[in-house]
C-alpha cells in the first residue's frame, strides 16, 4: 500500500534515542567504569496518517514515553528523522520549535497535577494562549475558551469558566485538560497513558469524548498505553514495541484477532477478561521474567531471551526488520510461519 505524502502527517524514520547513563557515585568509587548507552528507542519507523488514532503499545520500559517525548520535541533524537507535514523537523531552531509545540500537543496523564489549583478554569485555559503569545484581548480569548469548552462538551461553558479545578470530577478535569490542548488548534495530539489511573466509567467517558473531538476536528492522535483493551476500542492502528523496537504493527482489529509476533501473542494472553470461571486458574504466561535492560540488548532478535519459540538462529542471525504479511500487517519474526 502506498500512501500519498499528503495523507501522512508525521513520518518517523529509524528514530533512536540512546541515553548516556550518569555514573553513580558507588560505581565510580568502585571503578566499574564502563558506561553502556541506554538504548531506550532503537530504530523505529512508522507513519502517522492524517486523521487516524495510532496506538503505541508495550510493556513498561519498552520506550513508548521516550518516543512520545521525541515526537513532542521535548528531547532530541540520537539519530533518525521526523518529517511533519513534509518538513524535516528532526532538528529545528527555537522559533520553529515553538510553532511546532503549538501544532503538536500533549495530553497529560494526571490533569490535576498539571493545573494550578488557584486558577479558575478560564485562567487555566488562557494560560497556553499567553504562553504562546496568541494575539487578542480578553474578549477574543474568552471566545476561544468558550469554543474549546464546547468542543469537549462542558456545558454551559460560561459556568465552568468560573469554577476552580477542585470543583470538577475526574472526567471533567480531563475534559478541561483536553480543552486546553485544543485551544491552540493542534493537528496532532500525543496522549501518554491519559486514562490509565482513572476508574472505568470515567475512562469510558473520556475516551468517548476524545474520539468525538478527534472526528469533529479531524485530528490525529498518538495514543500511548500498555492497555490493549482500550487500544482496541480506541485506535485505528497499533504498533507493539519491545525493548525500543516495533515488533508488530497493523490495523487494530486485525492485529489483536490475528497476532503474529510471539510477543504480541503473550501480551494478549495476559489481558484479563470480565468472564467467570477463571478464579482457580493460574494463568499460563507464554513469557516469563522481566524485560531485559536497554543497556544490554540481546543480540539477534532482541525478544529471543523470553521467546517460547526461540531457536539458535534467532540469536545468531541479524536483527529481523519489519516484514509485510499483507493487509498492512507488519511483524518482525522470521519464524512466523513455523510457530
Amino acid at each position, binding site marked *: 500500500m502506498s500512501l500519498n505524502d499528503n495523507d501522512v502527517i508525521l513520518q518517523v524514520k529509524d528514530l533512536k534515542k540512546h541515553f548516556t547513563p550518569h555514573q553513580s557515585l558507588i560505581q565510580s568509587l568502585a571503578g566499574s567504569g564502563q558506561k553502556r548507552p541506554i538504548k531506550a528507542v532503537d530504530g523505529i519507523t512508522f507513519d502517522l496518517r492524517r486523521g487516524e488514532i495510532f496506538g503505541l503499545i508495550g510493556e*513498561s520500559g519498552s520506550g513508548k514515553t521516550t518516543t512520545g517525548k521525541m515526537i513532542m520535541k521535548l528531547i532530541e533524537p540520537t539519530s533518525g528523522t521526523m518529517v511533519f507535514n513534509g518538513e524535516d523537523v528532526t532538528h529545528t531552531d527555537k522559533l520553529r520549535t515553538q510553532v511546532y509545540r503549538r501544532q503538536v500537543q500533549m495530553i497529560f496523564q494526571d490533569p490535576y497535577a498539571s493545573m494550578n489549583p488557584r486558577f479558575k478554569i478560564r485562567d487555566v485555559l488562557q494560560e497556553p494562549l499567553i504562553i504562546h503569545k496568541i494575539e487578542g484581548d480578553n474578549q477574543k480569548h474568552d471566545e476561544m475558551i468558550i469554543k474549546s469548552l464546547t468542543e469537549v462538551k462542558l456545558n454551559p461553558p460560561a459556568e465552568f469558566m468560573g469554577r476552580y479545578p477542585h470543583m470538577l470530577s475526574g472526567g471533567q478535569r480531563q475534559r478541561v485538560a483536553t480543552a486546553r490542548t485544543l485551544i491552540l488548534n493542534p493537528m496532532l495530539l500525543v496522549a501518554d497513558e491519559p486514562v490509565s489511573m482513572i476508574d*472505568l*466509567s*470515567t475512562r*469510558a467517558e473520556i475516551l468517548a469524548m476524545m474520539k468525538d473531538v478527534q472526528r469533529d476536528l479531524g485530528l490525529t492522535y498518538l495514543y500511548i498505553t500498555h492497555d490493549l483493551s482500550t487500544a482496541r*476500542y480506541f485506535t485505528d492502528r497499533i504498533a507493539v514495541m519491545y525493548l525500543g523496537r516495533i515488533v508488530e504493527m497493523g490495523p487494530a482489529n486485525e492485529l489483536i484477532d490475528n497476532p503474529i509476533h510471539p510477543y504480541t501473542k503473550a501480551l494478549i494472553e495476559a489481558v484479563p477478561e*470480565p468472564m467467570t470461571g*477463571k478464579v482457580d486458574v493460574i494463568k499460563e504466561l507464554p513469557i516469563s521474567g*522481566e524485560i531485559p535492560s536497554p543497556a544490554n540488548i540481546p543480540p539477534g532478535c532482541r525478544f529471543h531471551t523470553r521467546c517460547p519459540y526461540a531457536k539458535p538462529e534467532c540469536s545468531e542471525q541479524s536483527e529481523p526488520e519489519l516484514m509485510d504479511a499483507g493487509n498492512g500487517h507488519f511483524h518482525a519474526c522470521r519464524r512466523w510461519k513455523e510457530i
Partner: protein
Amino acid sequence: MDKILEVKNLKLYYHTNKGAVKALDDVTFDLYKGETLGLVGESGCGKTTTGVALLRMPSPPGRIEEGSQIILDGRDIMPLTERQIRKDVRWEEVAMVFQGAMNCLTPVYTIGKQMMETLQEHREMEKKQAEELIKEYLSLVGLPPEVMGRYPHELSGGMKQRIVIATALFLKPKVVILDEPTTALDVIVQAQIINLLKKLKKTFDLSFIFITHDLSLEAEVSDRICVMYAGKIAELGTNQQIYGKQGPMHPYTEKLLQATPLLRKKVESLSFIPGAPPDLIDPPTGCRFHPRCHKVMDRCKVEEPPLIEVEPGHMVACWRCVK
C-alpha cells in the same frame, strides 16, 4: 464455610470542618476462610476506607462510629484498645498492601534494611535470623537474595510490588487486604503478580480482600464480588452471579460492566455513567445512585433500598429487585 471476618453495620465518617463525609455507611459483609472477596466501584466509593477500617486505622479526621462491629475469627475487635490492636490484630492478623505502596519505599535505604526494620519492630530476633527470614520471603515472591542490597530506584515496578507483598506476609496474617496491587503495572507483570498472589494464598492459607476498579481483573481473582457505591454496598454476589450468563442485577454494576472495554471483541462504543458520584457529606435521599440511574423509579428518590438476598448468596440493594 467458616467465616474469618464478619463486618456488621460498619460506619466510618470523616469529620471535616464542612461536615461528616459518610465514607462508609452501614456496610455489612462476611469474608470466608480461604476466599478472595473483591471490592469494586468508582473512585471515592469507599474501597480504601473499608480496608483501613478493618485495620482499625482510619486516616484523620476519620472515625469508626458507634454500633460498628468487626468480628475477626470470632472476636469483636471494636472494643479493643489501640495497644491490643497493635499486639494482636494490625499486621499480626490483618495486613494491608496499600494503594501505591510500591512507590512509598524509602529511597535512601536498601530493601534489606527496610524489611529488617519492619520485622524487628514486631519481632525480637537476631539480625542473622531475621536476614534468613527475609531471604526466605524474597524467594517466596520470586526474588533473589541480592535484592536486599538494592535501592528502590534500582528495581522495576513489578519487583517493588513483590517486596511490598513479601513484607505484608512477614507476620503470618490471616487476612490480607490488597488495595489496587497491580494498577500501575503493565499487563504481563500484572498477570505474574496475580499468579503469585494465588499461589501465596494457598501456601499460607490466606483470605484476601482484593480492591480494584478493574472489573476484568476482579473476574479472574475474586470468588465473590462486592460492588460499592457512595459508601454503601450496591450488590454482592459470587463470581458466577456477577460475571455469568445472567449478569449482575444492580443497574450500577450493569453500567460498570458495560464501561469495561473488551479485548477479544470489538465494541463500537462504551457506555459510561453520566455525572459523578455524590458528595458524601450530603448524599442524595433514597437510593444514593438514583440521580445517575437509567432505571430510576419514583420510590428510589425517597426511600433507601435495603440490601436483600435475591437468590442464595446474592445480595442487591435495588427497589427493582424487591418483589
